[in-house]
């Protein structure tokens, strides 16, 4: 036993030595008298850093190599400094002299490198030393240095806004907009735009007529990335009059020809921002120019395409005519990633009109025979959306749907039933399809499809011969069904009872009894509503249950108006991709930008604390000839951040308790859905309690209205809102 332990220990030791040797060797290399060895050691240190090893213990030795004519080596040392500055703020100050010296080096690359790195060493004490080099480099004769210095102003602003303003660096930036070099202009604009974004109260980059003219000149002079910043600022600018807007559009339109797609989209955004104010002819003319560039965006790399497609969807809702003739561009390619195919489908149904519907239908039919299940279902859903959108094409659409049923593929069938439910809600002329739909009940195993079928049977109870039998089949397993099916079933049986009393008689009592005993409050409430309704006055009950419903206009999901208007101003940003206001994914609560930054700082501090312990141990070890290895510095790289983040988030939670919570100004799509749901939930019980029938009728009318509205808004996001939908649907 002890023997084996000894061996084990020996083996362990054998494995540990190289670890010990690594830091040791690196240190030896770093202080070597030969330049080549030193450089090699630096490279290996950086390599260790890259793979996540903690080499912060070598900080003093790396620092010794900072003064070197070899620019590559300098870059590596600076890289190391940036990485570990936070954990060794005191030692960083030792590097200051070199930085200041380098900032006035004859080589412009060195000057730029020094000022760039100084800004990245995010240590408070560094700020005091940055002032003079920054001032010098902002006025440097070399544009490469000036453009680096311009960005450095934002770095300084990030660390110490007060100082940045007091020292007049923002004014220096403003003058750089008129610089002779395109890169300097670009960075000056980007820097100002960022500072304006972070601290709007300083008003350092409020576009006024004076700055506007500067920007319009710069637009053609600066690099592609600068153009994006300029165009974005232009779209935030409110034109004072029509002439102003015309002038801006005139200057922006040539940018639609730029090879960089983000410049193109930024230009489109700027044009859209200034198009509304203009007269209708000029507006139509400008909008026509936007079509071709939008189409070209669809041929970029898939990820870029995805962002473009999400934006096109927003633009299409605002200007539905803009891509009228471009349907074919959005046909799915065989090897498109799934997320692109889905997005293209969404756009195709929005472009669909009476002229292109035939082409679209044959394409959708092609897709519905594909192998990707989700894609097939979405394609079938698209056929239904077209049927409801274009009245003249409904017959063709239904024919395609019926053809699909004959293929007898299970998931196709289910989707067709769901889609046909919407078609039958709008059009009363497709009774001939009913037998086909009812034939395949046994194939339906998804609750959404079952609920849809139950609704159809209830609604057309008098047109389907065996409607009683069908519903009886469902009723017999009432308790096994999902909630949405149960809800539909109650409504359907009531409809059946009113339309064909002899068929519904046996069932109605049982269903209402089972329903009102349900554990689910919604099912129970629905049961009670109908029970009381039916027991008060059958004539009025008939009037209510069989009342004419407001027709559905569209099942294509639209963004709420307020959200649309916000997103039109956010084109190309993440908000436009998520279709959510920026406030919902940043800027508040535990995961707001500030909180994330705080988390990052906490993590750094934690790391620094651990390092200090580690460094201490190591320093002692240095003196010790046979130094032990188990110091935390060579700890496994993964463990540190994890613990750090845990500590950080706990702190954050505490912070959140005290910090004033920022409430997002705009309620998003999701929350507005929520509202509808709440409204429904509130009204339903009230109406069931109240015995005043006229008020019940009002409530129903309101619900009906809500239903058409919400299904109109929600159908595209079934997962989120299907519950609302089915709730409301049931009350028809």
């Amino acid at each position, binding site marked *: 036993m002890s023997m084996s332990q000894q061996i084990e220990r020996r083996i362990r030791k054998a494995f540990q030595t190289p670890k010990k040797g690594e830091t040791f060797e690196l240190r030896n290399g770093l202080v070597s008298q030969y330049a080549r060895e030193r450089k090699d050691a630096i490279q290996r240190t950086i390599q260790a850093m890259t793979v996540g090893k903690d080499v912060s213990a070598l900080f003093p030795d790396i620092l010794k190599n900072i003064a070197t004519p070899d620019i590559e080596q300098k870059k590596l040392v600076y890289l190391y400094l940036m990485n570990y500055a936070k954990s060794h703020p005191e030692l960083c100050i030792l590097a200051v002299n070199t930085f200041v010296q380098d900032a006035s080096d004859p080589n412009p690359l060195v000057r730029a490198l020094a000022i760039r790195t100084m800004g990245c060493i995010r240590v408070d004490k560094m700020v005091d030393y940055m002032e003079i080099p920054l001032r010098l480099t902002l006025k440097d004769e070399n544009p490469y240095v000036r453009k680096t210095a311009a960005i450095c102003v934002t770095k300084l602003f990030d660390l110490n806004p007060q100082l940045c303003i007091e020292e007049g660096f923002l004014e220096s930036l403003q003058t750089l907009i008129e610089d002779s070099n395109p*890169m300097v202009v670009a960075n000056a604009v980007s820097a100002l735009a960022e500072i304006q974004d972070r601290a709007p109260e300083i008003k350092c980059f409020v576009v006024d007529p004076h700055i506007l003219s500067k920007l319009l000149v710069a637009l053609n002079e600066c690099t592609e990335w600068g153009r994006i910043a300029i165009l974005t600022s232009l779209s935030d600018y409110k034109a004072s009059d029509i002439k102003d807007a015309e002038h801006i559009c005139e200057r922006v*339109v040539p940018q639609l020809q730029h090879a*960089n797609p983000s410049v193109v989209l930024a230009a489109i955004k700027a044009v859209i921002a200034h198009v509304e104010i203009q007269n209708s002819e000029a507006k139509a003319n400008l909008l026509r120019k936007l079509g*071709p560039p939008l189409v070209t965006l669809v041929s*970029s790399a898939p990820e870029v395409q995805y962002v473009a497609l999400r934006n096109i969807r927003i633009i299409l809702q605002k200007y539905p005519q803009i891509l009228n003739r471009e349907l074919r561009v959005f046909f799915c390619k065989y090897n498109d990633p799934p997320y692109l195919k889905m997005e293209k489908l969404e756009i195709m149904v929005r472009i669909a009109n009476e002229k292109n519907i035939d082409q679209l239908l044959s394409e959708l039919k092609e897709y519905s025979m594909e192998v990707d*299940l989700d894609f097939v279902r979405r394609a079938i859903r698209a056929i239904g959306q077209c049927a409801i959108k274009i009245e003249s094409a409904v017959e063709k659409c239904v024919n395609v749907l019926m053809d699909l049923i004959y293929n007898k593929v299970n998931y196709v069938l289910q989707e067709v039933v769901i889609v046909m439910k919407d078609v039958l809600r709008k059009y009363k002329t497709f009774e001939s399809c009913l037998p086909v739909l009812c034939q395949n009940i046994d194939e339906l195993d998804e609750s959404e499809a079952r609920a849809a079928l139950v609704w159809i049977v209830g609604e057309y109870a008098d047109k389907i011969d065996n409607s009683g039998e069908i519903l009886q089949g469902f009723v017999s397993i009432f308790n096994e069904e999902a909630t949405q099916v149960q809800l539909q079933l109650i409504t359907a049986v009531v409809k059946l009872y009113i339309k064909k009393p002899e068929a519904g008689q046996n069932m109605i009592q049982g269903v209402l009894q089972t329903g009102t005993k349900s554990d689910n409050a919604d099912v129970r409430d629905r049961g009670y509503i109908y029970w009381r309704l039916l027991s008060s006055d059958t004539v009025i009950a008939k009037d209510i249950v069989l009342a004419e419903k407001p027709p559905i206009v569209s099942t294509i999901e639209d963004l709420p108006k307020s959200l649309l208007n916000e997103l039109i101003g956010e084109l*190309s940003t993440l908000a436009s*991709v998520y279709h959510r206001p920026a406030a919902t*994914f940043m800027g508040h609560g535990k995961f707001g*930008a500030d909180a994330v930054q705080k988390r990052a700082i906490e993590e750094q501090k934690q790391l620094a604390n651990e390092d200090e312990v580690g460094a201490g141990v190591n320093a002692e070890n240095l003196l010790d000839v046979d130094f032990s290895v188990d110091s935390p510095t060579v700890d496994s790289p993964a463990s540190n951040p994890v613990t750090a983040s845990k500590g950080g988030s706990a702190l954050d939670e505490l912070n959140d308790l005290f910090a004033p919570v920022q409430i997002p100004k705009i309620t998003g799509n999701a929350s507005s859905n929520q509202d509808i749901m709440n409204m429904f939930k509130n009204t339903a019980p009230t109406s069931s309690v109240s015995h005043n029938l006229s008020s019940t009728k009002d409530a129903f009318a309101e619900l009906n209205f809500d239903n058409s509205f919400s299904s109109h808004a929600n159908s595209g996001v079934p997962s989120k809102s299907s519950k609302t939908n089915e709730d409301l649907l049931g009350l028809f």
Partner: protein
Amino acid sequence: MVSAIYILDSQYQTLLFRDYRGDIPRSAIEEFGPLIMRHECGDDIDSPFSKPCFTYQGVNYLYVQHNNIYLVVLSVVNTNALQVLFFLNEIVKVFTEYFTTLAEESVRDNFVVIYELLDEMMDFGHPQTTDYKVLQEYITQDTYQLDISTLEKTNSSLTGDKVSWRPHGIFYKKNEMFLDIIESINVLIGTDGHILQNNIYGKVVGNCYLSGMPELKLGLSDKLLVNSSGNIKPINVSPTESGSADTMSTPNTNAPVSKRKPIEMEDVKFHPCVGLDQFNDDRSISFIPPDGKFDLMTYRLKNKSKPLVWVNCDVEVKPRSRILYKVTVKSQFKKRSTATFITIFIPVPQDCDSPKFKTSIGTVVYAPETNCIVWKIKQFSGGKEFTMQAQLQLSSVTLNAQDENNTDGIGEETAIMSNGKVGRAHRPISVSFEIPYLATSGLQVRYLKINEPDLKYPSLPWVRYLTKSGDEYSIRMKKPLSS
């Protein structure tokens, strides 16, 4: 605004990262892998993590995948998503230029250069430059001692010239400028033989071997119309404008220009060196070119003529589990043009055996690894038609699938769905080819004026035309007949 860029390997482990702003905890990247995997395991297409950008716990993740690595950008603000994703694609391009292939290994081997590049391409989250030629001037893979004097002389971005894409002091003994007009044709033909898409994606590629700072002016076909401006304007070119040395013969000089239909371009995009304002004013393309190869302009238009290569494929299922393909290929371009390297890929069911082929031209092979029959023809002149017949023996697996699906499944890849049913992936027939000396759109270079104000050297412009199949030249398979 980019907070940090991470390069991850296929297991989502960090290979390398550059934290620009320090406002995101390092632990944030550890969430990335699990999030992506969660989506890959589940089949929920609506999951936000199936998209190239998503938000999780206050951090926005934007990424592209290339070979076996992921390039991930983290950001805390409502950043410009299109810009970031395009920038990532540009990074991939630059890295590929530097290391030939960008993959896990090349990232490990070149971490020093990558750090340098990341620092040069982006500063504090703002993109700086993604031009390979500019970057190459001061970041090379070989270690070198910096010589300031030569650097200042040649490095354009350091000298403060407005023309950042072209260094000063370039000298060639022989001054030449090559222009390649390359038109890629994207065609999609439906099962019923209807043309669903027929587009030309054109590109004018310049290859510049000119000394000094030459100013170039390019004149294209006088019938060129650019649609994107809304009001269609022809380019005005007077024939006297083209100097004798700069005029070049085009492949179709014998065809009278006036008879040709005008070319209606849907959209045109230019290299940053072209003055967009000037193009907008008088439709002239003036520029100082970068040195070496560059894409001067790209354009897009609808192809009005028939698809250049037409493929028809009849599939017939014979008794004793045999399947017969009859493929006809037709060249629908002018007789004097010749297509080269025509390759036709015909999708077939999995695991076929004993393939037999009969053809009058070219070679046919069965490629089981891609489940395709590949028919290659070296040369093919216009207005011709050839036929190939192939017979394959189906495997038993495919046969079973076929039973359930009534012969529909033949000729298409079959896949077992989660519910046990057999679905079909409609792989289309794809075609690739090249037709030299032809620009399908009829676009022609009328003249290219080269003027170097100081050196005034004589120069030779060369123009080449090439039409080829684009990424997507496909014909959807018809339903098989059974006998």
